[in-house]
């Protein structure tokens, strides 16, 4: 990407729930070192962490790339999971297809995608059933 300050790539492990969030944690630390304002860092951290958790719960892991420019932070979360059957429903707060064991881990309240949207300035979901989902999000730097 043109005028990129930093380009980062992560693989999200499909089975290791313990490690979910490591990529988001790393991005958070790098943004901090770049001197990005804390409120922007928190938006990126929450949006990406929710996405990472989704990848582990629903999609057998996947790959994340992050581009940091002076204007915005771009995130792409790509998986080859089952795809999202009904995006409108998935965007409703409280709607979840997560299995019960996920709820006992503290997730699966049906807040993930709505919260990703809330914390990003743009969000786009491309999904094909049986093939996978790509979520792209942008968080703008302050003017």
């Amino acid at each position, binding site marked *: 990407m043109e005028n990129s300050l930093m380009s980062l790539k992560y693989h999200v492990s499909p089975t290791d729930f313990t490690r979910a969030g490591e990529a988001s944690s790393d991005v958070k630390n790098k943004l901090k070192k770049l001197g990005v304002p804390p409120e922007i860092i928190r938006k990126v951290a929450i949006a990406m*962490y929710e996405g990472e958790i989704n990848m582990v719960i629903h999609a057998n892991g996947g790959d994340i790339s992050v581009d940091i420019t002076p204007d915005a932070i771009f995130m792409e979360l790509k998986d080859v999971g089952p795809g999202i059957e009904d995006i409108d429903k998935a965007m409703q707060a409280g709607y979840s297809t997560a299995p019960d064991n996920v709820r006992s*881990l*503290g997730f699966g*309240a049906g*807040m993930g995608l709505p*919260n990703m949207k809330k914390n990003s300035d743009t969000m786009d979901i491309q999904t094909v059933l049986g093939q996978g989902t790509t979520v792209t999000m942008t968080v703008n730097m302050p003017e």
Partner: protein
Amino acid sequence: MTVQSIKELLNARVLGGDDMLDREVFTACGSDMMSDVLAHVDDQAVLITGLCNPQVLRTAEMMDIVCVIMVRNKQPDDAMIQMAAERNICLLATSLPMFTTCGLLYDAGLRGGGQHGK
């Protein structure tokens, strides 16, 4: 109030991040659902929870929470204790249940914070 005064009030053990004990905190939230913490919490400094897994500390990290209180005698493992220390999160454990913990802290002046605490 300080994290140190929370520790004393709840008769809590400090499991990690004891260099954060002098931090001043004003707001708290109590939940076992990290999804809800991520979606609804706004600038709270203390997380009270009965959930005991590494994602509690990840959630706290993303939300810039400075103190996590484990209620009902939950015992985090060494990996969690290390995670807390690495992230400058003070990890406390109390034998008190969630309701009593929240009640004591509210009584001592902690509030819900953001638009959800009014």
